[in-house]
């Protein structure tokens, strides 16, 4: 199914928003203005957007410590997210969560998560809730667990896959293989011949594999996965091969990278560059169309940073806000 011009522009804009959100954070973090630990999603945009463009707010996602992209793709407000990362009381989580704990349940975004592997069981629960509610006009609401190649080694992920399989929960395990769990390569850390999807298959699930730097490959695979899961066939999994353009965390010296590796993946595996080449090559969009989106996004990010800088800071009294057992 060919995407409409509007859908193509929307997908590109969403990927570009994530890219520039992260590139800007990479710069701002170095000034010391932003506190805490930040893990950037740059390079993986096609996965979050290629997955979430199919979803409605009634579908749920559970994210990871590298969660900005998933949050933005699922509809979290750019300004509110930037304010949260800046630690403002006007932030999406009032400055209580920060980069690793952004959530907006009204958008079906059940939380980024600072604990690697914690999200998958939560997604199964959301899928079991969908099973209680039953199918809507276009099938079951789904829950998606985003996991990296690090989280695929956690027992929680195995427990979650098995529970989903035996309960036939409409849960989708999306594995983003960016080849690094923190500072360790998949060739060392991931058994099963580095084939993460095969683990899902071992639990009796149908699994897909696709190039996670190709938006169209992600989008097409996810349409098939969603048709399968919404129809009540139980859970499924998909592994996307992708790239992480920055370190595990901001400040990571990345001494584990090979010579020229970062330049190479930026040159050959950039999902935005590939999207542009694809749509202009096919005559679906013109460079000028995409340039206009770029300019618009740069303005939006500039505005978000300005809003975050100007936003109210939390006070000592805010420490005890939203406390339900006080001593």
């Amino acid at each position, binding site marked *: 199914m060919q995407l409409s011009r509007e859908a193509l522009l929307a997908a590109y804009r969403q990927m570009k928003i994530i890219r520039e959100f992260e590139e800007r954070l990479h710069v701002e973090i170095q000034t010391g203005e932003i506190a805490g630990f930040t893990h950037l999603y740059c390079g993986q945009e096609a996965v979050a957007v290629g997955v979430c463009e199919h979803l409605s707010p009634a579908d749920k996602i559970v994210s990871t410590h590298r969660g900005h992209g998933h949050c933005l793709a699922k509809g979290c407000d750019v300004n509110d997210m930037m304010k949260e990362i800046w630690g403002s009381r006007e932030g999406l989580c009032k400055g209580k969560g920060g980069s690793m704990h952004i959530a907006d349940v009204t958008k079906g975004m059940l939380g980024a998560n600072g604990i690697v592997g914690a999200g998958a069981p939560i997604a199964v629960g*959301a899928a079991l809730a969908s099973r209680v509610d039953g199918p809507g006009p276009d099938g079951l609401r789904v829950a998606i667990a985003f996991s990296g190649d690090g989280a695929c080694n956690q027992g929680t992920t195995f427990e979650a896959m098995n*529970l989903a399989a*035996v309960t036939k929960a409409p849960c989708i395990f999306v594995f983003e293989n960016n080849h690094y769990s923190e500072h360790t390569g998949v060739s060392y850390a991931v058994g099963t011949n580095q084939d993460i999807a095969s683990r899902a298959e071992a639990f009796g699930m149908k699994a897909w594999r696709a190039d996670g730097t190709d938006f169209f490959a992600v989008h097409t695979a996810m349409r098939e996965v969603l048709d399968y899961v919404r129809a009540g066939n139980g859970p499924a999994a998909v592994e996307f091969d992708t790239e992480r353009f920055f370190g595990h965390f901001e400040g990571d010296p990345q001494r584990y990278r090979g010579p020229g590796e970062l330049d190479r993946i930026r040159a050959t595996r950039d999902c935005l560059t590939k999207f542009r080449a694809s749509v202009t090559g096919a005559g679906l969009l013109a460079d000028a169309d995409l340039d206009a989106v770029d300019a618009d996004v740069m303005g939006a990010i500039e505005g978000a940073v300005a809003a975050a800088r100007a936003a109210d800071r939390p006070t000592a009294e805010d420490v005890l806000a939203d406390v*339900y057992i006080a001593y």
Partner: protein
Amino acid sequence: MSNMMYRAAVLSTIMEEMERDPNVVVLGEDVVGGMGTEGGPEAIGGIWSTSTGLYDRFGANRVIDTPISESAIVGAAAGLALSGKRPIAELMFADFIGVSLDQIWNQIAKFRYMFGGKTRCPAVIRMAYGAGYNAAAQHSQSVHQILTGMPGLKVVMPTTPADVKGLLRTAIRDDDPVIFLEHKALYATTGEVPDDRDFMIPFGHARLSRAGGDVTIISSGLLLGMCEAVADKLAGEGIGCDVIDLRTTSPLDEETILDSVEVTGRVVVVDEAPPRCGLGADLCALVAEKAFSSLKAPPLQVTPPHTPIPFARELESAYLPSVDKIEAAVRRVLAWR
């Protein structure tokens, strides 16, 4: 009023709440029991008989029998709760929290605060705790001291069938996560229970099970009965004991404790968990901080020793607090001059 067992109070409350609210969902290992066997669903109906008949009544979507996967059980409860359901997850034995602790401690306990107050997590995590069955070190523990120390969890440990009824209903209807600890040695005890399907006991309200005025004994669960036995014995000697059943360790009814201590000036805390950083130490610190001028004797705690729980009958009996040990501690604070 109806006379019923502690375990029947658990089951009937869950049944009534599932009838009342279609969002209430039960999950856990063997909560149906017999799935995938020739005996079929409900062949067992839960090892504590606290979920018998739920599956036949409400079906597989609302009564979810899970594999032995405690992280997935609590994690799924978290996901259900974030998706508008009111899950009641059963961990079978409290000792199994170790396997699922991340989901309890880092997830459900933190969501509401960490997400800026916009998210509620109405999950109940039930588990059977306590010694008395010679089940040894990994099936007998009292875990409230671990969980009470975690901000974001409400921790409930009922002693009587009536309190099971009122506190469990409150837990299910609560919009925040509740740890519901059922003492396995109390499951077969009986008591009068109100029939009112809206009977609820608010959290943070202790029960004064004996009123005496000479010494304050604080406890909950299986050991409360021993405290009452000591109080009844001493009453024969003209010594009056206030026996306080905490009902919930978080929130904590400081008012009832401090009101009693201000009159008695003497305190014994009796707890089934080990002595360090536990309820006994916590409540002794509370009265030292907030009722110091009322104290006539150092507050004492009666707990097991700081060891794993031993297996053999003689060893478990020696390990646990007893009527004699509690009486000795009470006489010690009474004798202090």
